[in-house]
Structures are given as structure tokens and as C-alpha cells.
């Protein structure tokens, strides 16, 4: 094989490994040598991927990286899903980053906004998760990837446990383009329960001095669900789940959707809906799903990640959850998002702000958060071809033209008209459209879900069926009709609202058979975390912050 003018990446990789030399013993690096190894395997100008997933973080590696100097590490093109740790922010403050491409910055949203204002956040674009992983194979292929795994064996095989998240999506493009993969693990063992990443794809392993950072992001205490959220859940169940016979779905995690999950065994049962809806789920193993699973509503659940405390429960319910040969839970963000895009009848979730055209965003001048996965689920999958009842019914209402698919995915925004502190959810124009934000993002406003993709908005006032609207003016009127007493809502015109209601485009709770005075927390299958533990027959282990007994 002529390697004179080709295989440059392979040669360069060999040089980097040579520089590491005796700092590693085979693949294994001791914790005190990590920063020196990082200096040698990363070169200025590299595309560097740091595993900052939604839940798990390669935090030991990130912290070691943040101890380096700008002279050792500069002009780095950072690609990562979630900017979560102070160490991540440090990299920007130290001036090491030439460009960043990411998806979500929730916990560091304020810090990122500050960096933007200080012009220290050179962003390429905010992406959705699958969009970023896709670019790892196109123009953002990582040269070096720093990842987090649960365990490694003495050969360097990796076990990812419940929180697979996007590790395979990062490792594959890196390993197969002569990149370098460095994994931190909680422990090195003789024998893994199962092999999730083969040693062939791993170059270095360190047993971190502390377990990887892992957040219980998706646990919602039923005690915090309000009567208003129960009302909205009842309205959604009758006006959407029941009406369209939603069999497959994704819940954007929140108290609103947790209320729906906890109403299935009670209110849903009373309505005779078991078996007719909610059989197939793409969602994390949420504790609030336990009563519905125990009551026989759920056929299967695939997830993008795990949830702290649900390890024993998921392992004991392998007929519902995806588990490995070793018996423990398995997840995959890239594939979960793909499933959430193509293979479900409905996405339902909340947002912080919605404008009069139905566009939504969680970004404001003082908090730049990004999108996470919502856009992948909350959009119309025009590449879809297989029909389901819900898809066809929603499609018929949308009156597709000759060049459009006959079906539509249900994309539902479930929001209260006011957020905490009486801040209105509905606005004439999104904060995300602010010129300074657009400028920082090269002219593209960070809209999470586009109004054209939304089929319904559900508030405590009722349901607006946007898909059935025939013009932009009509859609705006429908949104104002359910925007309650926000400034946007107060601008509604009585005649227009009454006409939309007569045509069924706007429905009040009474119109879908729900009496507001019926809505009460006592309808929930359980009112507290302790109740979830009982429902789970003792298999659910709530994290310490949720235990008050």
C-alpha cells in the first residue's frame, strides 16, 4: 500500500501516541498523569469532543483539561452536546476555544450568556442532539474524544451501564477516522457484565478518583404537581390522547407530563382507555411511569439515557425496558432520538416562551440554554411513510396539499399561560429573536420548535388545534384564544374566538368533557415519592434529595 501521500491522520495519531510513551502503561493512565497525557494527545486546532451528555459527564477529564494552559491548548474547536460543568466554562475563560458547536447549556445557561456578552463564546451553531452527532460523521469529526464509561476491563473494553446516552455516537466516528478515544471509568474490573464498546475503539483509560458526575434530571416529585397541572393533563388526555388514539409517544419531561403519567391508572382507567393509548414509549425510565407500568398500560419503553434510582426497577422489568444479556438497562440517545423522530404518534412537552405564530424557545438574553432533544421529536417527519391511526387522523385535519404527506405527527405544546413569578408564556416576539442573540448565532434565532410543526397548544384555558387552521391570521387568533389573561391573550377578539370555538378549532375543558372543579391532586395514582416506592414494590431507590423518611 502506498502510504506516502495518504494515511496522514494515521501517521499523526501514531506520533501523538509516541509522545505519550511511558506516561501510560499500555492503555492505562494513572490519574496523576492525565493532564500530561492530554497535553500530548491534543494538538492546537483539533476538533475536540468532550462527553458532556445531558446526564453523565466525563468530569474528571474535563477538570484535568481545565488545569492546562492556553499555551498548551489553544485554537480548539470544541464539539459537545451539553455545556454543564464549571470546568467547561473555564476552557472559554482561558481563551482556549476557537469555536464551539453544541446543543444544550441548561446548568450553565447564565454563564454562557455572560460569555456571549463578553464576546468570549465563539459559537458555530446551537444544534439538536442528532444533528450534532450527524455532523461528527461529516464536517465535525472529533480528532480526540474524552468520554465517560461505568467500567473498563484489563483489555480496555468498556461497559456503559444504564446511561449509554451518546457514547457510541461519539466513539464510532472518532475511532474509525484515526481519532483518539480516552475514557474515564468509575472502576477497572477483571470481567465486565457486558461489553458496550470494544477495546479496539479505545486508546486510553483512567480509573477516575471519583465516580462520574451523573444527574437525576428526570425525577419529578408528585407532591409538586398542582391542581392546575392535573386539569391540563385531563384536558390533554381527552382532547388529544383519546381523540387521536395515541399509541406511541414521547413525553418531554416535566410536571405537566408527569401529571398525565400519574392519571393513566386512575382517570385513564375510568375513561376505558387502557390498551387504546400509550402502549409504546420513547422516554427515560421515569419514576412517575411506575404506576402506569404496574397497571399494565405499557408494552415497551426505549430511552435515551437512564435515571438515577431506577436501576433495580428497570432490570426487574425486562419485558418493558431494553436490557442487555447481563440483565441491566441499556439506552442510546442517538437511536432514541431517531425513534422519537420517525416512529411515534406524538411528542408532547412544555416550553418557556411561545410567540403568536406558535414558535417556541427557552433562550433569553440572560440565559442561553439551547434545545436538547425537543426539536428532533417536536417536528414533522416528512421522511416518514408508515401510517398509524393518529398520524392519519391528524393529517386529515391539516388538509394536506398535493405535495404533502397524508399524515401528520402530533406535536403538542403543553403550557400554563403564566410561568413562575407571573411571567407570561405567550409573547408577541420571542426573546430568542433579540438582535444580539441572533448576531451571536450568525443570524439564526434559536427557535426550539417552529409554529408550522406544532399541531396543538394546550393551556389551562383549553386546546388550540393549530393544524386545523387555514391561515396565519387564524392560527394567531387560535393562540390568543388559549393565551388566557396574558397581554397576548387580552388582545383576542370576542367574535373571532367564538367562531373558532364553533368550528372546534378552539376547545374549552367543558368541550372535551372535563369539569375544572373535578381537577384535583387526589386523582393522581400517587401523591408523593413514597407512594412511587410502594407502587414499585420496593424496587425504586429514590436519590437522597427525594427521601424524607
Amino acid at each position, binding site marked *: 500500500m502506498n502510504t506516502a501521500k495518504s494515511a496522514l491522520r494515521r501517521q499523526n495519531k501514531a506520533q501523538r501516541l509516541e509522545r505519550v510513551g511511558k506516561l501510560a502503561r499500555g492503555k492505562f493512565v494513572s490519574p496523576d498523569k492525565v493532564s500530561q497525557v492530554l497535553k500530548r494527545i491534543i494538538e492546537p486546532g483539533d476538533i475536540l469532543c468532550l462527553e458532556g451528555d445531558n446526564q453523565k459527564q466525563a468530569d474528571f477529564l474535563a477538570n484535568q483539561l481545565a488545569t492546562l494552559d492556553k499555551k498548551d491548548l489553544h485554537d480548539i474547536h470544541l464539539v459537545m452536546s451539553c455545556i454543564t460543568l464549571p470546568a467547561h466554562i473555564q476552557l472559554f475563560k482561558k481563551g482556549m476555544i476557537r469555536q464551539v458547536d453544541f446543543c444544550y447549556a441548561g446548568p450553565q445557561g447564565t454563564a454562557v450568556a455572560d460569555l456571549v456578552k463578553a464576546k468570549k463564546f465563539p459559537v458555530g451553531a446551537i444544534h439538536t442532539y442528532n444533528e450534532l452527532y450527524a455532523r461528527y460523521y461529516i464536517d465535525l469529526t472529533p480528532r480526540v474524544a474524552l468520554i465517560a464509561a461505568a467500567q473498563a476491563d484489563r483489555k480496555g473494553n468498556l461497559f456503559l451501564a444504564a446511561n449509554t446516552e451518546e457514547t457510541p455516537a461519539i466513539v464510532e466516528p472518532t475511532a474509525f477516522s484515526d481519532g483518539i478515544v480516552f475514557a474515564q471509568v468509575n472502576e477497572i474490573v477483571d470481567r465486565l457484565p457486558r461489553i458496550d464498546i470494544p477495546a479496539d475503539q479505545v486508546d486510553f483509560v483512567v480509573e477516575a478518583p471519583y465516580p462520574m458526575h451523573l444527574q437525576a434530571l428526570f425525577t419529578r416529585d408528585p407532591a409538586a404537581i398542582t391542581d392546575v397541572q392535573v386539569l391540563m393533563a385531563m384536558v390533554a388526555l381527552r382532547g388529544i390522547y383519546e381523540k387521536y388514539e395515541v399509541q406511541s409517544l414521547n413525553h418531554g419531561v416535566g410536571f405537566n407530563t408527569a401529571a398525565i403519567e400519574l392519571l393513566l391508572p386512575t382517570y385513564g382507567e375510568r375513561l376505558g382507555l387502557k390498551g387504546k393509548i400509550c402502549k409504546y414509549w420513547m422516554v427515560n425510565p421515569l419514576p412517575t411511569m411506575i404506576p402506569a407500568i404496574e397497571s399494565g398500560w405499557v408494552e415497551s419503553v426505549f430511552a435515551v439515557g437512564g435515571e438515577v434510582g431506577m436501576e433495580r426497577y428497570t432490570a426487574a422489568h425486562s419485558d418493558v425496558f431494553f436490557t442487555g444479556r447481563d440483565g441491566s438497562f441499556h439506552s442510546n440517545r442517538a437511536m432514541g432520538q431517531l425513534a422519537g423522530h420517525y416512529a411515534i404518534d406524538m411528542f408532547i412537552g412544555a416550553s418557556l416562551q411561545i410567540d403568536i405564530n406558535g414558535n417556541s424557545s427557552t433562550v433569553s438574553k440572560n440565559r442561553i440554554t439551547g434545545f436538547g432533544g425537543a426539536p428532533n421529536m417536536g417536528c414533522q417527519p416528512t421522511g416518514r411513510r408508515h401510517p398509524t391511526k393518529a398520524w392519519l387522523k391528524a393529517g386529515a385535519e391539516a388538509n394536506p396539499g398535493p405535495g404533502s404527506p397524508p399524515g401528520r405527527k402530533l406535536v403538542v405544546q403543553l403550557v400554563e399561560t403564566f410561568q413562575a413569578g407571573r411571567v407570561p408564556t405567550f409573547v408577541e416576539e420571542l426573546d430568542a429573536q433579540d438582535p444580539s442573540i441572533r448576531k451571536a448565532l450568525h443570524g439564526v434565532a434559536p427557535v426550539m420548535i417552529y409554529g408550522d410543526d406544532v399541531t396543538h397548544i394546550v393551556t389551562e384555558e383549553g386546546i388550540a388545534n393549530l393544524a386545523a387552521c387555514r391561515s396565519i391570521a387564524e392560527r394567531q387568533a387560535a393562540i390568543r384564544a388559549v393565551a388566557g389573561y396574558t397581554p397576548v391573550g387580552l388582545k383576542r377578539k370576542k367574535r373571532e374566538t367564538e367562531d373558532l370555538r364553533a368550528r372546534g378549532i378552539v376547545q374549552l375543558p367543558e368541550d372535551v368533557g372535563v369539569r375544572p372543579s373535578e381537577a384535583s391532586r387526589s*386523582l*393522581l395514582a400517587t401523591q408523593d415519592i413514597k407512594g412511587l*416506592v410502594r407502587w414499585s414494590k420496593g424496587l425504586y431507590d429514590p436519590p437522597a434529595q427525594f427521601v424524607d*423518611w
Partner: protein
Amino acid sequence: MTRGPLFHEQTARRRIAALLDPRSFDELLPPPERITSPYLAQLGIPVSFDDGVVIGRAKIGGKKIYIAAQVGQFVGGAVGEIHGAKLTGLFKAAARDKVPCVLIIESGGVRLHEGSAGEIAIAETMRAIFECRAKKVPTIAVIASDIGAYGGIGILSTCCDFRVMTEHGRLGISGPIVIEKWMGKKAYDSANRALVWKTSGGKTKYLLGDADALVHDSAAAIRDAIAKLLGKSSPVSLAAIKARQKELEKRLKRFGETADPDAVWKAMGVRDIAAASLASGPEFAAMAKRGK
């Protein structure tokens, strides 16, 4: 499939409706009389028509009682001038009419906004409770919500003949945050809810004998517990106080140096701490050997 509403989540007025014989409640000084706090407006705080406590005459199982239910969401259920006056008047009427008096407690103690007035009112109410007991008129405190009975109301609750608690209730004087501030986080971590409830919650209080009944978190269970206690009362005598002092000295001797609440439970016969922690009130009561 659904159980009924949980007592600890119900409002004061709902609790009254659920506890009492149907249509037997006759509210005294009801909202239309607008007897509200004269002090809150100048602090920019809205008043409440009943100043945070609902009082009146009623019946339980056909028997006449006087009843008061505090509204924990209104300034933490804390006692101000009007609220305190309503309690004092109620217990005085109970003593005068020889009718048992039940207090559904949900209070942090004295309303700081009305400090002196609140202190005085609580002291006067305690005196009225002693008056009831001197006449063998039963006085019953129900402590069944997360807010609990703290400060001066915590003390007041122990002046009553009986205390009915649930696993949600807590009884103390200084709240967890104050304890942490004085003793340090290592000694008492106020953010550790399990610790807070194991030291001042209904289960431990029942175990140690400070609560007389530990019942299910429902109006029906609390009603039954109250009904059982309506015929009993004892005066506050010097002999009784001396006996109680001796009991507390014994308790201090036995558990004064114990740093772990689980050790107290174990010493009192609870074998499976995890199961006991998860158990409901009545389940726990069955597991443990209650003593003093």
C-alpha cells in the same frame, strides 16, 4: 383505585368539612364579619378574612365540640392578635360550656409581624386550656401536616390533654434551620428531611410517648381518634407535672448522648429500620413498642 384526599394536603376548611358530622359546623366570627389583622397592611401583606384560623361549634359522632383549624398557608399559620384572640375565646367558651375543644394545628408559632400580641395571645390560650382541664373538659390537639406545631404553638400543643399525630406531623419548638444554625451542620443537617422527621416527626413522637395516637393520613382516621378521646381529660396538677419531669429526666439519661435517631428506634424495639421508615403511621405503630 384512588384513595381519598390526604389530610395533610387539605385546606383548613376542607379538613373541618371532612372531620365533622355533615352540616353540623357553625362558624364563629366568619369571613363576612371581616375581623382581620390590624397590622399586616402596613407591611404590604394581604389580610385574610379569618386571620388564618377557622373556629366554630360542631359535632363529631353526635357529640358537641368546639373546633379550630389553623390555615398553614397564611403567614405560616402563625399566631397574631386576632388569630390568637379567636383561640383564646374558643377555649374559654369550651371551659364555660363544658364542651370538648379540638385544635387542628398547622403553625410555626408566634407571628413575628405581630410579635408581642401573638406571644400574649398564646399565653392566654394556654391559660384557657388549663381552665378546661381543671374542669375536666377534654382538649385535643391534632398535628397532622408538614408545617407541624412549632414555637409557642408547639408548647401549647403539649398543654392539651392529648395529641393525635400522623407520620406527616412534626412537633418541636425551634425549627430545623435554627437548630442547624446553633449546633452546626454536622450535628444537625436541616436539609436532611429524613433526619428532621426522625427527630421531630409523628412516628418518633408516638414512640417516645409525646403523641397519644399515630393514625392514617385521612380525615376518617383522625375523626375516629378524636372520637375515642372525647370522654377523657385530666387536670394539670403538681403531681402530674412532677411525674412528667421524672419521665423526661429518664429519657434524657437514656438517649441524651445518642447522635443517631435510628439508634433510638432500635432501642425501642424497631427491628427493621428501613421498613419502619417506609411504613405508614398505623403500620409503624404496630411495629414498635411504645414507651416513655
